[in-house]
């Protein structure tokens, strides 16, 4: 990945992070920590990989995406808006009663959302269903899904993992947002799901571990997954919960809490500073 592409992706990611803060701030509720954590996975998927058409969101040949950790809807909506599926200003209606931007994703209201999710553990199963359909129909679309590391405590995730391997769904690539924190604390204290990579490998998946904030590593994992035949791939993404906002980083208190005005202002100013730095590097690059 060349430097300019990297910088462009960083710029998109920073814009998405700003919108995450704005969404959760304007809703006065929502999940900023996990949304900021998985932003770089979203950025890589939607801006460096996925075959989607904002003018034809239901194109039967499109790549599919399922947000299995549905509470990170702010990251999904921000990504879809920046991509052009719907107006960016609509993000400020998140979680409002007349808005189509439901607290957790709804495929029947939101352009670009391929599956309604929110109940943890189910999204990955629906992604298995989509990938199975791709095999049945001999279509070349690929299916992507992001899981939370706390989410994999749900038994259904392992039922889905078994099914994905059993039906040799090499058109399915999933990501675990491995930030080590869930609502009640450290995942290892609440209900230890580790070792995560070993578990998916034992269930018959191709497993790749990456830095979940390095777009190039994520992209390379996606490319490798495409070359692996006969098994689905799990990309274990080492992430920082709350990434990009200093006071939210590695603090589980920000799992499901909205910032107040002062906190919102600080978060936006930190992200603006980051954006200015990226812009400067882009200018120097040119």
């Amino acid at each position: 990945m060349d430097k300019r592409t990297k910088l462009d992706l960083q710029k998109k990611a920073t814009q998405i992070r700003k919108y995450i803060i704005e969404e959760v701030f304007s809703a006065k509720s929502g999940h900023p920590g996990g949304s900021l954590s998985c932003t770089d996975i979203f950025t890589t998927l939607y801006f460096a990989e996925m075959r989607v058409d904002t003018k034809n969101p239901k194109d039967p040949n499109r790549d599919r995406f399922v947000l299995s950790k549905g509470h990170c809807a702010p990251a999904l909506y921000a990504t879809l808006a920046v991509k052009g599926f719907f107006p960016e200003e609509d993000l400020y209606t998140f979680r409002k009663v007349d808005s189509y931007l439901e607290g957790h994703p709804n495929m029947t209201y939101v352009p670009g959302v391929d599956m309604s999710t929110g109940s943890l553990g189910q999204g990955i199963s629906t992604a298995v269903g989509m990938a199975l359909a791709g095999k049945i129909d001999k279509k070349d679309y690929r299916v992507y899904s992001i899981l939370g590391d706390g989410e994999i405590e749900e038994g259904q995730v392992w039922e889905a993992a078994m099914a994905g391997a059993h039906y040799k769904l090499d058109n399915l690539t999933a990501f675990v947002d491995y930030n080590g924190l869930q609502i009640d604390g450290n995942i290892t204290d609440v209900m230890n799901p580790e070792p995560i990579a070993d578990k998916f490998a034992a269930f018959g998946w191709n497993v790749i571990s990456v830095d979940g904030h390095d777009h190039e590593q994520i992209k390379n994992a996606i490319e490798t997954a495409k070359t692996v035949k006969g098994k689905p791939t799990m990309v274990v993404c080492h992430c920082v919960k709350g990434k990009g906002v200093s006071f939210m980083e590695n603090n589980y208190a920000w799992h499901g809490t909205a910032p107040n005005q002062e906190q919102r202002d600080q978060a936006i100013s930190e992200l603006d500073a980051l954006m200015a730095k990226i812009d400067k590097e882009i200018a120097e690059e040119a």
Partner: protein
Amino acid sequence: MGKVATREAYGKALAEFGADERIIVLDADLSKSTKTDTFKKVYPERHFNMGIAEGNMMSVAAGLASTGKIVFASTFAIFAAERACEQIRNAICYPKLNVKVCATHAGLTVGEDGASHQCIEDLAVMRALPNMLVLSPCDEIETKLAIKAAIEHDGPVYVRLGRLGVEAVHDPETFKFEVGKGVEIKEGTDLTIVATGLMVQESLKAAEILDEKGVNARVIDMHTIKPIDTEILVKAAKETGFIVTVEEHNISGGLGGAVCEALSQNYPCKVKMIGVEEKFGKSGTPAALLEKYGLNAEAIAEKILAAKEAK
């Protein structure tokens, strides 16, 4: 005519209508019991065993349906409607996906497997879900036509099916099935029995017993539990003044509940609800269980006469 279980009729219907390539059938290691293996013999490439993992099966069904498939997902009623209830709610009903949950082994007549496998709450649970169509056919032809209707219906459907072989109620040559429309199968003026599933057969026999005792009962086969046919119920209430519901299901929330909701809001009328009376089943032959739980023709007739006296 021989007896045919509605689960067998389901398997045959799937095979008969299975040429439609959009149809995908999922099972959870029970395909010989649910009879989806009848479909599998004809279309093995569109039958997928999801193993003993019902929750995953329902969500996988949703994913398949999101790509345009018509998905049938089968297991025993207890594991479909109850173990996988939340998957059916959130992954299938909420996004209104085209999944047909066809649940066999409903009710007490599962028999010897006993209470853990006898689902007597599924109508109540499935009926409570927005976007869900709930069908409960009583015989072979009605099951076949219910499956055809499920294929044609765009959205989630729950179909309640039984293990036990049952006699034909309807003439396969002339029977017309319409979703949401109950079927009057015996005329009567003194009271109306509204039954579903294999209680239709028992209720017809109960009505014969009542005839002998000078009570002329109308019998309605209510094959659609949701949406319930309010029109036929109001007509029956006006014309016969007394309604009896009969179901192989707990007394709470099933057919009786649906009928009472419809009548209380449209034409209040005295209703006697006959079903399993707030207890779990047990092991035994189907006939012994129906007798023990007061759900064979004789017991139904007796309960109706007692209720009529009390009225």
